[in-house]
């Protein structure tokens, strides 16, 4: 077996996605720290629209796709269907998404629609590649089915985005832009990103904690509730049909409660204490509970109750920066060094002394990432509730610190990539050297 070349290709595919995502995250949280009103104002303003799309297309989508090109073959237990298709996806996304964000910033919806079509084409190629990969072994597991459903909602969200831009530009008439926008946001954030989070967690949480998997029946129920919620909310949002919205919000809350219960069960069955990246991940999971309440309020238009005055932007801020960003940052702390290790060290295991995966990222920076994430989420919650610019600015600054810690750790991988630390089996470790893998 020669694992080296294959892992090299895998890493070379995912790292550009990660690099794009990380650069966008640094720009995004810096922008939020400079202008915290972006986290609490309605998303119709041009700057808010650009900010939202920088978050989704610049930061989260590339990172999720970079991970998906690794994880979906793992979940499906089959090789990626087309590596060339994945590269095509990356090139289209890299070329079009900055232009789309720029067009939205200038309120140029005709250009937005054009670049949106290019982004949609790349997404379609990527989704097709991943869906075929997921289906190769036809394994009907909750994580596999959950990922395919998440990809389905992504395509719907992208299609709605293009339609929305055409409506805004006046090329298409007969649609209510506000209703389309609500559905576009719901399909993207809930259908794709939350759906992916749920499905991936079912596989990776027990794997990283060395625990027993949770209950399959409960996992199926969570997926059923999430997707039922989306199928109820779609006509409910388009037709402003309150009973459907009520049912959809109820199903969404049930899905979130079921997911949190499943994570709790997995957590209690663990053999391994969560490391810093997993703790960062769990901060995001914990923020899901208040975010779901705000989500239900936003869907039902409960602006005047005890929830934030503007639930829609509050929901976006909470889901993106409170839930998904910590979850992605946490998983990045596991996946990125793993890919680098596979690329540079996997071919040597059993033949030479090589570092452990956990040696590739500095624990102090991982701890800093966690310690910056906790106040970031707490300040964000308080900030969106009170619509307090100073609190939101502090939340963004804290998240910037967390992102910088990840960036520093990623930069620290370079020596391993350029000059791998491989020692002969017989040699004694240097004084103070960390433990190495494969040391018979």
């Amino acid at each position, binding site marked *: *077996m020669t*694992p080296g070349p294959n*892992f090299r290709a895998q890493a070379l595919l995912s790292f550009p996605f990660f690099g794009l995502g990380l650069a966008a995250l640094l720009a995004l949280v810096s922008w939020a720290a400079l202008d915290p009103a972006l986290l609490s104002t309605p998303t119709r303003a041009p700057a808010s629209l650009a900010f939202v799309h920088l978050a989704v297309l610049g930061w989260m989508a590339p990172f999720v796709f970079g991970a998906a090109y*690794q994880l979906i*073959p*793992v*979940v*499906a*237990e089959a090789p990626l269907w087309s590596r060339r298709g994945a590269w095509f996806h990356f090139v289209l996304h890299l070329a079009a998404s900055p232009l789309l964000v720029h067009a939205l910033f200038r309120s140029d919806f005709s250009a937005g629609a054009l670049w949106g079509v290019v982004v949609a084409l790349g997404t379609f190629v990527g989704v097709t590649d991943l869906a075929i990969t997921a289906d190769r072994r036809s394994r009907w597991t909750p994580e596999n089915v959950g990922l395919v459903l998440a990809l389905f909602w992504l395509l719907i969200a992208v299609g709605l985005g293009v339609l929305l831009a055409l409506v805004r530009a006046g090329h298409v008439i007969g649609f209510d832009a506000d209703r389309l926008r609500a559905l576009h946001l719901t399909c993207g954030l809930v259908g794709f990103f939350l759906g992916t989070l749920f499905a991936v967690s079912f*596989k990776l949480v*027990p*794997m990283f904690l*060395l*625990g*027993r998997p949770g209950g399959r029946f409960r996992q199926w129920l969570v997926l059923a509730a999430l997707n039922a919620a989306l199928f109820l909310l779609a006509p409910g949002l388009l037709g402003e049909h309150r009973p459907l919205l009520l049912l959809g919000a109820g199903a969404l809350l049930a899905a979130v409660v079921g997911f949190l219960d499943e994570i709790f069960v997995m957590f209690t*069955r663990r*053999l*391994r*204490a969560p490391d810093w990246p997993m703790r960062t991940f769990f901060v995001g999971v914990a923020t899901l509970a208040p975010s779901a309440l705000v989500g239900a309020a936003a869907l039902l238009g409960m602006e005047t109750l005890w929830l934030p005055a503007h639930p829609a932007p509050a929901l976006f801020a909470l889901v993106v920066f409170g839930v998904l960003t910590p979850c992605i940052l946490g998983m990045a702390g596991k996946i990125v060094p*793993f890919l680098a*290790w*596979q690329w540079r*060290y*996997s*071919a040597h*295991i*059993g*033949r030479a002394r*090589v*570092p*452990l*995966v*956990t040696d590739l990222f500095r624990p102090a920076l991982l701890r800093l990432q966690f310690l910056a994430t906790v106040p970031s989420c707490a300040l964000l919650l308080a900030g969106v509730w009170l619509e307090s610019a100073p609190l939101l600015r502090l939340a963004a600054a804290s998240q910037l610190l967390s992102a910088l810690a990840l960036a520093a750790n990623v930069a620290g991988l370079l020596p391993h990539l350029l000059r791998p630390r491989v020692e002969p089996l017989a040699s004694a470790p240097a004084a103070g050297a960390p*433990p190495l*893998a*494969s*040391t*018979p």
Partner: protein
Amino acid sequence: MNSAPPILTAAAVLEALHGLIDPEVAVNVVDLGMIADVTVSPFGEVSVSILPTTPGCPMHDVLADGARAIISRLPGVSAVDVGFVYSPPWTPDRITAAGREALQARN
């Protein structure tokens, strides 16, 4: 002077596999309970069955390759076959006391 090579046994193979450390968990594969079976033929043919902790984890192919490399260095080995079994599935109960201690130490 006795120059006969040491006798190759399943126990010797298992002992050697203690040196194969899962680089993500930092515990060796034997104490993780990932070695389901080891057989050694009188002709030095070694067959090892690995029980993956999570089906589909890409690290398992790497570990299988490492196991092959380690076993093939043992004296008296003529052939090595490393495969996977999935049933009954791996559970944390398979982790040995030493493995649990190692996990606790890293926690």
